[in-house]
């Protein structure tokens, strides 16, 4: 009896307060690295394209405006590329028009709750995948500058609602022909229309939107209309990741298409 008492480790023993001394970074046997690698490649190529597109001058060929340069707010913008003909910024801005506006959709995606997950995992490896140790010695998350600024997401959302409206406008305007007459439809029109729908869907599926619509309420039953909208946004929100990827590629493709047509590399097929 005495012997067994001697050998026991009690609750106060310091050895107990230790995790399993496993050296491996992870014991996962599946290809956990695949998702972050693919995400990294996809996001990086989008960034490269976006940077190129920002400075590319071929952003307009009537009646199409490349989405990365919309809205075109400078006086250098051709008449047809302006929204309702306005050029409110004037001519003082020296860089291409895309540089001026790309901050809004860019910032929206940068602070988006889904993109945050994807680049924290694939770029910053924090963590690269679930139950795979991250390489950093210290971690403070979004508690301090600069990452605390992610909390401005809703303002980018407001901005992106405007951008969605502009893209919708541009898609509608693309039903005019080169002379500005209604009744035109080309491949470019279809592409811009599809893009406008998907960008709007992505924007509305935003977590901030869900919160603003009704998520902040504690009594849905007192606000039946807002609750119904919340239900709709929640349904879209469940597909936020899908919409983020799909809309990212449609906007890239739409933008590239317009520029290729503008450069004369591709000829836009007109249906009527």
């Amino acid at each position, binding site marked *: *009896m005495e012997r*067994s*008492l001697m*050998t*026991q*480790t*009690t*609750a106060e023993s310091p050895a107990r307060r230790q995790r399993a001394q496993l050296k491996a970074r992870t014991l996962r046997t599946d290809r956990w690295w695949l998702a972050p690698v693919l995400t990294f490649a996809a996001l990086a190529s989008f960034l490269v394209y976006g940077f190129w597109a920002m400075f590319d001058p071929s952003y307009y060929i009537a009646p199409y405006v490349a989405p990365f340069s919309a809205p075109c707010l400078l006086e250098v913008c051709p008449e047809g590329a302006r929204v309702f003909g306005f050029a409110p910024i004037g001519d003082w801005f020296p860089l291409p028009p895309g540089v001026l506006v790309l901050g809004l959709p860019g910032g929206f995606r940068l602070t988006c709750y889904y993109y945050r997950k994807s680049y924290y995992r694939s770029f910053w490896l924090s963590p690269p995948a679930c139950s795979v140790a991250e390489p950093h010695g210290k971690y403070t998350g979004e508690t301090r500058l600069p990452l605390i600024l992610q909390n401005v997401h809703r303002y980018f959302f407001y901005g992106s609602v405007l951008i969605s409206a502009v893209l919708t406008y541009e898609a509608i305007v693309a039903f005019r022909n080169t002379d500005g007459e209604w009744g035109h439809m080309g491949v470019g029109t279809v592409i811009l229309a599809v893009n406008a729908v998907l960008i709007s869907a992505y924007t509305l599926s935003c977590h901030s939107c869900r919160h603003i619509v009704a998520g902040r309420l504690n009594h849905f039953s007192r606000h039946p209309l807002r609750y119904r909208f919340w239900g709709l946004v929640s349904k879209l929100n469940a597909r936020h990741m899908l919409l983020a990827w799909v809309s990212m590629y449609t906007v890239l493709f739409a933008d590239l298409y317009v520029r290729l047509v503008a450069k004369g590399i591709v000829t836009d097929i007109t249906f009527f």
Partner: protein
Amino acid sequence: MDIERHEFDVVVIGAGGAGLRAAIEARQQGKKTAIVCKSLFGKAHTVMAEGGAAAAMGNVNPADNWQVHFRDTMRGGKFLNNWRMAELHAKEAPDRVWELEAWGALFDRTKDGKISQRNFGGHEYPRLAHVGDRTGLEMIRTLQQRVVALQQEDYAVHGDYEAYIKVFAECTVTRLLKDDAGAIAGTFGYRRETGRLMLIEAPAVVLATGGIGKSYVVTSNSWEYTGDGHALALLAGARLINMEFIQFHPTGMVWPPSVRGILVTESVRGDGGVLRNSEGKRFMFDYIPEVFKDKYATTEEEADRWYTDQAGNRRPPELLPRDEVARAINSEVKAGRGSPQGGVFLDVSSRLPAEEIRRRLPSMHHQFKELADVDITAEPMQVGPTCHYVMGGVEVDADTAAASVPGLFAAGEVSGGMHGSNRLGGNSLSDLLVFGRRAGAGAAAYIDGLERRPAVPDDAVAEAQAEVLAPLERPGENPYEVHHELQRTMNELVGIIRRAGEMAEALEAVEKLRERAKGVGAAGSRIYNPGWHLCLDLRNMLLVSECVARAALARQESRGGHTRDDYPDMTADWRRRLLVCTAAPDGTSVNVQEQVQPSMRADLITLFERGELSKYLTDEEMAEYDLAVKES
């Protein structure tokens, strides 16, 4: 001697619904309370309860009230219930449920914002407060969080969360200790994590340890259900009643082995599921008892019509009471017409479109998909009876939950009497709350009436210590083998259908197993050593199994959860008799004696119709009834 010592006013053993409610009550009455539980805090078996808590709130049907609930409970228990308990239960259940809501529980709602209530077998009106099919979890979480809330209050006042209520998680109690005068003085046990021995001195102990299902092979109960409270009470000199009544749920999963015994909800049959044997026959038509002949369909055509037209047709026999269905399945399997894994087929796939099954039975679909890889929309389930609940337990005073030993209280499944010979679905959760609270209050009042704290005698501690450490000190038989043998014995010989010869055989086998249990040993250290723990649990399971077998052998009738092949009828004479188990302090010689069931109070008995009562009561009791009616 390295024994951890603590002092409390009340020790609650068990942290399920009854234990937590008792602890909350004791603490609210200012008593320093310890909760001792074998699992982590919040993992108790109560989380397995799905259906709901029965309480006559009348939210869905305003005609409901406590009298109706009382009548349903007594009928369900075949009038063997402790009527005072059934009365208190029916009266207090609504308050206990509402109280949970004030502690943060979120029940499903009615249209006007009240707690929604659902229909269940044996309940005349929709009565079960529920949250989807996870009501037990909601209850545990709410009570757990209430305990934490009280701890936060204490922290604000005393700077110590555990000043008045402390949870000893993963600790097992092996003995109740009494002072020289025979009153409860404390508990002795060990910490499962470290193997450290632990003595808690306390003048009052509330048993809330749940049931005994782990003495059976096929059970819906978890490993904790080793009958600890039943055995501790017996060893402390308390009395157990109704131990022969064990509820077998007719449909538990039988395959794969990993999920054997897990419940398949009654709604599968309610929604059209049918039972077939290996020959493809809907065998329930052969098992309609004489008394139900006029209420159940005799042809498959009529039975199938019932699902769409309930007024013009009789119910399908799959919906006979639980005990009848369990017995029928048992007979089919014994006759060699069972499914490959020893059950029968419960088929809903050929009865409803896949979409409809997924919509109506989402949790069952999920359960079979995840656990058994069976798609119930495409193939039949295999089901068989599973040991579910023990109606018997510690004999207690209805109002205070006090057992016959001074300072000992019991609530929940470990107590006996409330449910008579058969428990209604939904009555267990409300039972936990009502009598958990009463046990906590009873313990507090008992302490207030004490002149001095009972002292724990040293020799009792030394004995308890030797008993606990013994398995570690001998190279003995593997306890898992003794346990399996016991489970097989009880399952086969004291199962759903019982015969005198088989039960005598079981008693012999238990006797032999008890000898073997004296020699079981555990290798390894005292730190979280499951082999050692099982060695110690064996004592309890063996003791309880012997009570069940002895009481079952003594009761020469069939009633509720006790079916005798050799005495198939229910008799009024046996209804007046309760079987009481006692044991010697060293756990040998279990004794069963008869005791007269007291007559129902006049205002309660007159709640029933004469015609109904005459089926159950003796002529003598009927004369009392007639007198009561005349006087009222």
